[in-house]
């Protein structure tokens, strides 16, 4: 079943197309990463899903429902944050969650449970404005879990966190996924998406340029790394190899993108042509490489917080 489905979703701000005809589907149980650099339209897209930004054009379905009423019903089965955590600064953490729980019809007891989950139980009586950024993010995460939603939507949940904080958020997300929730999260951090998500859509300048499972993207082809006494000879032999897609020479190392992952066959082929190697390994492509290839280097998202 499709939990989220969009078709040609568009948002225009004056002359600026913030979101340009985006179509994607998120199925039940997926941890779906929405990956893109700053200003690519992630927040705008999520805002439209959540009903607080009116789309210029396009359609949205949540849990198969659409229309004002249907989307409202779908949103009541969703827990979400958008950009920064938004709470009443003068209320305590638990009073803030009480406001949310009242709206969602969640019990008093569930407030303590989610506070426990995000490790804020001992600070729940302190006012929100005294919280650190990491605590604010965790409270936001706690708020999304109230009312036991089937879909959790998180806009940059790791924003501004230190490696330790990111690790905690990652663990909480993994727990939620293990509990069978569908999770949709946006990020400009490749590593975060690679580590957290099962599926990914890569967005750039308001358009989705690739959508697949993370495994599919990162293992679609094998890249082999080769070194030997004569790099030039290695390169020209690789060019002639039937399974090679592309060849690149980087200093004394040659990189070849292969259609298969049979390195033994490659080695046999090269030694058959009198080319001997001192080094041969397969390299799994990271999401970063895919991203670079798709978007060009200047668009590469940050690798910060790579804990």
């Amino acid at each position: 079943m499709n939990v989220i489905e969009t078709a040609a979703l568009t948002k225009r701000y004056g002359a600026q197309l913030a979101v340009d005809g985006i179509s994607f589907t998120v199925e039940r149980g997926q941890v779906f990463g929405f990956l893109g650099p700053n200003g690519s339209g992630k927040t705008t897209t999520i805002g439209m899903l959540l009903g607080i930004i009116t789309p210029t054009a396009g359609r949205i379905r949540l849990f198969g429902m659409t229309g004002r009423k249907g989307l409202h019903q779908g949103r009541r089965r969703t827990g979400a944050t958008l950009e920064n955590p938004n709470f009443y600064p003068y209320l305590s953490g638990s009073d803030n969650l009480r406001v949310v729980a009242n709206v969602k019809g969640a019990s008093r007891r569930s407030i303590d449970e989610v506070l426990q989950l995000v490790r804020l139980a001992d600070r729940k009586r302190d006012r929100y404005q005294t919280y650190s950024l990491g605590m604010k993010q965790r409270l936001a995460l706690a708020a999304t879990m109230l009312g036991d939603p089937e879909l959790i939507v998180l806009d940059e949940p790791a924003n501004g966190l230190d490696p330790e904080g990111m690790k905690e958020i990652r663990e909480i997300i993994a727990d939620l996924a293990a509990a069978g929730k569908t999770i949709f999260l946006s990020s400009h951090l490749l590593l975060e998406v690679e580590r957290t998500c099962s599926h990914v859509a890569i967005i750039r300048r308001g358009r989705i340029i690739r959508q697949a499972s993370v495994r599919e993207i990162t293992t679609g082809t094998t890249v082999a790394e080769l070194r030997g006494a004569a790099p030039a000879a290695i390169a020209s032999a690789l060019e002639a190899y039937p399974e090679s897609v592309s060849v690149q020479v980087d200093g004394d190392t040659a990189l070849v993108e292969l259609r298969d992952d049979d390195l033994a066959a490659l080695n046999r082929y090269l030694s058959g042509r009198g080319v001997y190697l001192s080094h041969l390994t397969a390299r799994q492509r990271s999401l970063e490489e895919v991203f670079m290839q798709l978007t060009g280097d200047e668009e590469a998202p940050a690798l910060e917080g790579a804990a």
Partner: protein
Amino acid sequence: MRTSAVLFRNELLKATKRPATIVTLGLFAFLLCMIAGSSYYQALLHPERGGFILPAAWPGLLDDPGVPSAFFAAILLILLVDSEFSWRTARQNVIDGLSKAQWFGGKLVLFALVCLGCVGLHLLVTGSVAASGSFHIAGGIRTLVRGSDLRMMGADLLMVAGLGSVAMLAAFAARSSGPAMALFFFYVALGERMLALVLSRMGGAVASAVAFLPMKLFTSLPEPARWDPAAFQKAVAAAAKHGHPPPDFSDTTLLVWVGIAEIVVLLTAAFLVYRRRDL
């Protein structure tokens, strides 16, 4: 039904725990104490003037802080509504599952709470000072309120709600408390007079609409002479002394209904302004 209970609980929680509410209402209560206290003191000095005895003291108590008493409600409404926009909780509440209409419904609950709260505080503070005055001076209270006092209290509530709904429109148009207060006080202090000037220049039926402009209408409603027979006699006598025709309050019923209609229109406009824009 469940939704209204949720909205009520949340608005009450948010408003009562907010320091700004306590400060604003505290200042209002202080002002009321000062005014009622000084009337009490005057009554002790001049017992021959009839003094500070309920229920005869009500018209004066209700009239005394006058229009500014509605400003406390207006300021409080602007502070409480617009901080939801600056903290983006207006957005989060909708994300958490309220529809935009339900969220606005919450603000209507707040509107009612603030208007009733301010008028209630007014009655409570001045009423208890006057009650102690009545016991001290007259040895007791025979009647707490008369029908005319109740009607005047209603008119006072209508004034607070009327100016409050002007403040609501300002709050939703500006979405930020500084500019919203500037907008509100500009209209109240200057804007409406400028508008009145333009309208009266146009003459005819248009000019007669001046009496129905919100500030003019709502502030003229709680006039004691409109509701209290004794105050009316005084006004008639004063007019006769200056050779003026006696005051005519036959428009009271019309003003009340137009006033209620204006509150509905102002709040509806606030809703439309709110709904049109993204959060």
